[in-house]
């Protein structure tokens, strides 16, 4: 009975792991607590997006992930 949080790109280094399982259901405040203060600070910035069930959320603060859902933390894509 869990939600998978995926840390992508540079957030993977900041989180120190690729993914983490947390208890379902998971909302925005639950996510902030689950990822720790450093990642939470990044996540709070506009340039970091959130996907749930393979869809980018228009309003990431409306997150509501249920059992079996995958929540992906998407930092801005790289230039170059």
């Amino acid at each position, binding site marked *: 009975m869990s939600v998978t949080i*995926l840390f*992508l*790109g*540079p957030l993977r*280094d900041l989180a120190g792991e690729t993914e983490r399982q947390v208890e379902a259901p998971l909302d925005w405040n639950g996510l902030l607590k689950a990822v720790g203060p450093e990642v939470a600070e990044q996540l709070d910035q506009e*340039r970091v997006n959130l*996907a749930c069930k*393979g869809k*980018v959320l228009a309003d990431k603060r409306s997150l509501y992930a249920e059992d079996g859902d*995958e929540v*992906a933390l*998407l*930092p*801005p*894509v*790289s*230039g*170059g």
Partner: protein
Amino acid sequence: MPKTVTKWRCCPRSAVARLSISTPLDVRLLDKGLSVGEALAAFNAAHEQAGGVVSFLGKVRPDGGVKALELTHYEPLTQPGMESLAQDALARFELDGALVWHRVGVMTPGEAIVLVAAASRHRRNAFEAADFLMDHLKSAAWFWKREKRADGWHWIEPRDADHADLARWK
């Protein structure tokens, strides 16, 4: 993964090219090297009626002591994002077809990262479509890059120039 609305059909293999190209759109994420000459020969053969074909090939540059480049992505967004972008280009520039191939994983300098091609009746449309595809690919496809230099791996930050490139099409 959402289905796109285009009807896909398979082309007969060309005599020159051993590759099969889907028409009108051929969108691929590749985890190993791509043969550019073969891909373009097959794309040209698949769009014999098009008056003009423009291609762009992007390669890993051997700049600043870069030893390797790693591209990570989020597959549930990347493939649909690339397909939807190719669809947009097809309609917007009245293309006969488009090819959008992107490498993921670890690459070394000189290796191909991205190949796009656009086939159209008119030259200007083919040029603009290839340009449009390249400008939008990064934002459509959620790629994160890091470079391996002498002192280890470094993430590549977003660039302001990318936003300027995108603004050209608004």
